[in-house]
């Protein structure tokens, strides 16, 4: 099987290369026979990569330690789930997994569009095949997952204990689905540029793809945060680590794109901008991969990985050069027919939202690469940490939050005073009332407190804006169709999926903002080295260290558990059991935290250390409102699914709008 897998990768590379060349030759030379044969390559490449992936999975499941990769990331004692997940536990396998997802996306896009979009298809397929060739080249000649060990060892080294939990099965695939998904819009955008089909055809074609990739990337980021929070035991969920930033930046750029693309669909504006954003999103995913794989930013990785980093850097350079050249060449064709009218208009609120999103992305980018730049320019390595990102991104984020409320309600083209009054009086009033009501209860001592206070007021304002939209629509339907409120609300949402699904996503974003503000500003923690019976007092909780338990779980894993009684107002509310797990063959224990979670706050316990006399160092965090972040995440997921749901009405409305535009060529007022 291993030979078959290795061979399949070679065949895939050859086929993909043939595909690129023959697609182009067929289109240039008008050769139908060549086109027909080229058109078979996407599925063949997918098949070969699937065979190779199956072979590697088989090796994991059958403990075939003759493969260096299986030996390095698996062992006999691991459960089936972790054996499956070990596939992406290391560099080589994760690249194969990446390629497998990429070719799967390519094949679905191929099956979906091969009859419908004959003009764009050959070029879009070529672009995707070129990217596939790059990855297959790495897999064949640089990081071959089928590398053998001549004398197979008895047992493998096993997956890093830190990775052995269920998030390892969920988080990486979700993130990769997001990362890789942006290749499809990128390929069609490139095809549109090459073939000069620059109307909004490629945008409609890839809207759902972009949403899908965005959905997975967003969930992937949140799963990563949740993993960090519940498993890694440092009390937080986001640390502005370069690799987190790498996943965060494409999400921001893609969010900007998803918004500004609506302006192009409705008003035929911002064409260059949209094209640049979709290309930039893809570039950011490659840049993120480069950061993750090269070790350049942290410069503590092994030499082998650094070489792989140069491959990605080269690829990144080529992609940026091609994108820039193409856009500049096509600038005359990307001219917009309409212009922005007024600051107070929905169009300009979209423009500002884009600038703010890109602002956060750029600040994050700059902070990530700053050590390299400072070393190159000044010869001193200067690093920035979480304080930098917080100081810069929080004000921008708050402005963005305000726009989430303003954008959907403000009139197109030019908002009048009466329009502003009609739409914004109630939300503003609600925000002011909330601000006054919260004032006596919240401390306002430092910068963090004040920013959180502003954030809460803005959250209420935005919720007011969104809910008033739902309320207006529902009331109108109730009058018109004599429906019950609930029926009217669901019919409203279901018949305008994009619009109201988008609002649902916004509600989720507001929840996340509130959760971040609450947990960052009002959180507190304490740590003490406790003897049995001693306590930590924190807020209105008393945490008492009761005893230490040692357990031999399996032959390779043992646990040390601290039992902690948590009291509130003298009443025992919970028994927490944070622990440390020790794995055979690994000299570092893994901390398992214990969390008592509620909508108000989390009590978060860590067993940081223990000594021979059974004294233990306990860390206690009080993290307010963290559960709002996870709830917000699920709301976003639900809203995105509503947006993505197939919709015939939407298509009909689009055609109507197109006709209207063509006939009168005056932008319709909504």
């Amino acid at each position: 099987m291993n030979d078959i897998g290795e061979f399949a990768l070679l065949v895939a590379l050859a086929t993909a290369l043939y595909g690129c060349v023959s697609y182009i030759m067929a289109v240039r030379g008008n050769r139908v026979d060549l086109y027909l044969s080229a058109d078979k390559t996407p599925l063949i490449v997918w098949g070969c990569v699937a065979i190779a992936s199956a072979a590697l999975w088989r090796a994991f499941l059958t403990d075939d330690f003759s493969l260096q990769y299986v030996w390095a990331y698996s062992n006999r004692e691991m459960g089936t789930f972790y054996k499956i997940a070990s596939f992406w536990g290391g560099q080589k396998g994760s690249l194969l997994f990446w390629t497998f997802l990429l070719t799967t996306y390519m094949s679905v896009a191929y099956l979906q569009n091969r009859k419908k979009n004959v003009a764009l298809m050959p070029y879009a397929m070529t672009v995707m095949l070129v990217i596939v060739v790059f990855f297959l080249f790495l897999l064949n000649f640089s990081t071959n997952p089928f590398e053998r060990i001549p004398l197979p060892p008895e047992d493998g080294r096993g997956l890093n204990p830190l990775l052995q939990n269920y998030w390892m099965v969920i988080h990486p695939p979700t993130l990769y689905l997001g990362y890789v998904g942006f290749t499809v819009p990128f390929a069609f955008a490139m095809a549109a540029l090459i073939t000069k089909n620059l109307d909004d055809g490629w945008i409609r074609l890839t809207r759902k793809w972009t949403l899908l990739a965005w959905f997975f990337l967003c969930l992937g980021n949140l799963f990563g945060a949740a993993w960090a929070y519940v498993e890694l035991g440092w009390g937080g969920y986001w640390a502005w680590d370069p690799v987190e930033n790498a996943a965060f930046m494409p999400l921001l750029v893609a969010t900007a794109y998803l918004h500004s693309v609506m302006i192009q669909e409705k008003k035929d504006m911002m064409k260059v901008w949209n094209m640049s954003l979709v290309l930039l999103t893809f570039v950011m995913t490659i840049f993120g991969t480069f950061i993750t794989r090269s070790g350049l930013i942290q410069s503590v990785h092994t030499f082998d990985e650094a070489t792989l980093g140069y491959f990605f850097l080269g690829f990144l350079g080529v992609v940026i050069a091609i994108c820039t050249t193409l856009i500049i060449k096509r600038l005359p064709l990307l001219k917009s027919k309409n212009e922005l009218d007024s600051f107070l208009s929905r169009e300009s609120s979209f423009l500002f939202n884009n600038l703010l999103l890109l602002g956060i992305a750029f600040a994050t980018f700059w902070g990530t690469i700053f050590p390299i730049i400072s070393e190159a320019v000044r010869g001193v390595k200067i690093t920035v940490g979480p304080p930098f990102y917080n100081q810069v991104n929080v004000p921008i984020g708050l402005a963005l939050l305000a726009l989430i409320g303003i954008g959907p309600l403000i009139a197109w083209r030019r908002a009048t005073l009466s329009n502003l009054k009609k739409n914004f009086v109630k939300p503003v009033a609600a925000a002011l009332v909330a601000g006054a009501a919260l004032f006596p209860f919240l401390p306002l001592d430092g910068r963090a407190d004040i920013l959180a206070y502003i954030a809460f007021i803005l959250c209420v304002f935005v919720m007011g804006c969104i809910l008033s939209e739902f309320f207006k629509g529902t009331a109108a339907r109730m009058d018109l169709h004599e429906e019950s409120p609930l029926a009217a609300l669901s019919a409203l949402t279901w018949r305008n999926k994009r619009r109201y699904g988008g609002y649902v996503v916004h509600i989720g974003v507001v929840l996340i903002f509130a959760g971040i503000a609450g947990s960052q500003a009002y959180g507190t923690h304490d740590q003490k080295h406790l003897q049995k019976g001693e306590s930590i007092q924190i807020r209105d909780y008393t945490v008492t260290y009761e005893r230490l338990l040692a357990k031999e779980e399996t032959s390779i894993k043992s646990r040390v558990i601290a039992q902690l009684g948590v009291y509130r107002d003298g009443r025992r509310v919970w028994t927490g059991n944070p622990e440390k797990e020790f794995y055979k063959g690994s000299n570092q224990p893994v901390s398992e935290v214990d969390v008592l979670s509620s909508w108000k706050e989390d009590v978060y316990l860590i067993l940081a250390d223990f000594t021979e006399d059974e004294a233990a160092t306990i860390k206690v965090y009080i993290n307010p409102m963290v559960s709002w972040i996870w709830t917000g995440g699920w709301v976003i997921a639900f809203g995105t699914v509503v947006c993505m749901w197939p919709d015939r009405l939407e298509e009909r409305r689009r055609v109507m709008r197109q006709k209207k535009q063509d006939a009168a060529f005056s932008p319709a007022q909504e």
Partner: protein
Amino acid sequence: MINKKAKFIVGSVLIVSAIAYLISAGISSTSQYFFTVDELMSQKASYAGAGLKVKGTVVDGSIIRDPNDYLKVNFSIAEKTSNLKVVYQGVTPDMFADGREVVVEGTLTKEGVFHANTLLTSCPSKYEAEKEAGKMHPGTLPGYESKETVPESPAASPKTTI
């Protein structure tokens, strides 16, 4: 028409420059120099009081815990030619021991003692799996596996906001 365009260009430029200001102000007020022990000690006078990150190896036998307070630790880190005394208050990472490579964050006093508010230990290659999988964990800097932060002096570790 031209006026309209100019208006938007001015508006956008204002936003962009506000963001640029935030970034440059953020860098100048939060950045830390990253040195090895030798680099720092050759020019230590100029960096007293500034936010610093220093990398070095724990000197054998230098770790002393305060008998009254388990969480108070004194130790020294060294490189080829020089040696730096470190005072740290907080939980030490699991891998913290003689001969380990560590990174400390904090400030240097005029007397040449380093007050660390963060202590990171660098990790042996066994954990490269984690990095490769593309999931560097929050709080786990690449190559450093455990992070314990104690906000000690407000000047050295600005309170983390949002």
